[in-house]
């Protein structure tokens, strides 16, 4: 007997079919985090990256490529690490950093950390950019406008985390933009949406900081570095062991003021020492000539 297709059954089948099709045809699958849609506010946002929870599946890496339509690059696994690709490029805005950690007893374990632009609260790249092609938005993202960029690459040199890269083919700077298009729609960034273990969490920065402090992790990175960033890492091992750079706590404005003071100090000291040296030598020569003249006179 052929069962008559009711409207309810038809809708059920259609929704199930569409869901399965989406699941298998979509290059990325969405995790639970996607369901928690944030109401969009101008409050600074942040991502909590829990190194202890990351399994190195690289779903964040792939999701970033897919959402931002970034081309794949030829990579290779190096002998000493599994990080692949080994760093940022104009087309790799997010990657998973693998670190082999040895404890005092000599036991080896692994830690994985999903890294991307730190979206500093006071970004060095924005500060040094001569054309204002890089801009900091109140909600956190540091975004890039190629229509203002001249390609001086000062941002590439200035970033303490070596994040921005210049694409020699497309002649643009490539870096994570914190999925600004998604978060303005109340969605979480693509990398967070695809994290399978909850190692990545998105929210308002003050809430994320609170979570970080309550997470029981011994080490926090990104809270104070360069004056504070939007990427808050928590870990059970020191971040130096994970290859994270030691960045001063002072923001770029304080850093520049302090450096200018030191430069001026060195300048004044050099000038005084040079003057003393110059007139000292001059007096010495004069004195020698006087002695010579007087001895001749005798």
């Amino acid at each position, binding site marked *: 007997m052929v069962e008559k297709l009711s409207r309810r059954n038809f809708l059920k089948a259609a929704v199930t079919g569409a869901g399965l099709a989406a699941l298998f045809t979509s290059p990325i699958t969405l995790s639970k985090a996607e369901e928690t849609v944030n109401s969009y506010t101008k409050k600074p946002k942040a991502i909590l990256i829990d190194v202890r929870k990351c399994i190195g599946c690289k779903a964040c890496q792939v999701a970033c490529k897919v959402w931002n339509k970034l081309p794949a690059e030829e990579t290779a696994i190096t002998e000493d690490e599994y990080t692949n690709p080994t760093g940022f490029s104009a087309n790799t805005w997010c990657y998973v950093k693998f670190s082999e950690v040895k404890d005092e007893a000599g036991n080896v374990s692994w830690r994985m950390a999903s890294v991307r632009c730190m979206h500093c609260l006071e970004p060095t790249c924005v500060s040094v950019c001569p054309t204002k092609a890089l801009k900091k938005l109140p909600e956190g993202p540091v975004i890039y406008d190629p229509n203002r960029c*001249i390609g001086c690459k000062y941002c590439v040199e*200035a970033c303490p985390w070596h994040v921005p890269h210049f694409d020699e083919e497309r*002649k643009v700077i490539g870096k994570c933009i914190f999925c600004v298009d998604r978060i303005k729609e109340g969605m979480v960034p693509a990398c967070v949406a695809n994290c399978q273990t909850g190692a990545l969490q998105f929210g308002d920065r003050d809430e994320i900081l609170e979570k970080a402090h309550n997470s029981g992790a011994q080490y926090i990175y990104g809270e104070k570095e360069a004056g504070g960033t939007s990427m808050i890492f928590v870990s059970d091992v020191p971040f130096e062991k994970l290859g994270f750079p030691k960045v001063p706590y002072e923001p770029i404005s304080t850093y520049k003021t302090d450096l200018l003071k*030191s430069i001026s100090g060195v300048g004044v000291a050099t000038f005084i020492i040079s003057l003393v040296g110059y007139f000292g030598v001059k007096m010495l020569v004069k004195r020698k000539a006087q002695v010579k003249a007087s001895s001749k006179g005798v």
Partner: protein
Amino acid sequence: MVLVWGWLTALDLFLIGTAGGAAIASGAAHILGRGDYDALAESGAYLAPVLGLASILTVVLDLGRFTVAPTNVLYAFSHFPESMITVGTILRMAFIAVAALNAILWLFRKETLINFVVRIFCGAANIALGFTVTIYPGVMLAFAMGKPLWSSPVFPWVISVSGMLSGLVLSTFLIPVLGVFIPRLTPALLEARRTVLIHKIPERVSLYMSILIVIELTLASAYLGSISGIAGAATAFANPMVSMFFFGGFIFVGLILPLIIFILEKLRLGLPLSVWILLLYVGFLLVAAGAFAARYSLLLAGQIL
């Protein structure tokens, strides 16, 4: 390793530093020289705007997006005073304008009081702006928070004094060369004044160069001392290219060797005068080559770490 800032950037830093140094040499020679160093003042006055313009050309060639969006360079003035490149662009423009005016005043000079006084004012402005363009590239690099080898407070002074040195030596080197091409200077090359232009001024100037070389050597040592605590600094300076250009090119060829030549020239040990003159001019070229090597090696070292 792919360098973000390579030899073209080093050339730009060399040209603008040397232009500033030439402007300082010209202004100082005119204001303090009591007429004895006018050939140097004139030579430096011509060299400064030419090198300044050449540096602008190298900057433009070095820009990654000039070919696709040439008008974007106009935005380079928009982030004042936050971005050191914006500050530098404005300083360069002001410097080139004043240096060009100074050169015109020298080229069409008349021995009138007003012309003399205007040249004095222009020379003073040239010294001030020349100094700013010799030091700003070092400050710009020092502000790159991500490059610890550039962040030493001594670093901008190494770059600045190097620019002053290369400007002074190239201005002196150019005195006889310009004398051939600029009609007014040609008579000065005639028998009576030949020795004064080709030998006397360089001989006197080499004393000031020696002082600057000693200052530069002291600053270079202080710079190395200031970065010695940075992890990886030793590895960066042990890189074959860096060590060849820094220790070989900058320190030995660009500073120590010319200093030995300048000291020996003062002692006049047995060689005929013509040989000493030749050696002096070789020494000038060595200093200029060393100034380029300094910039290239320091750019390289900073990017390795």
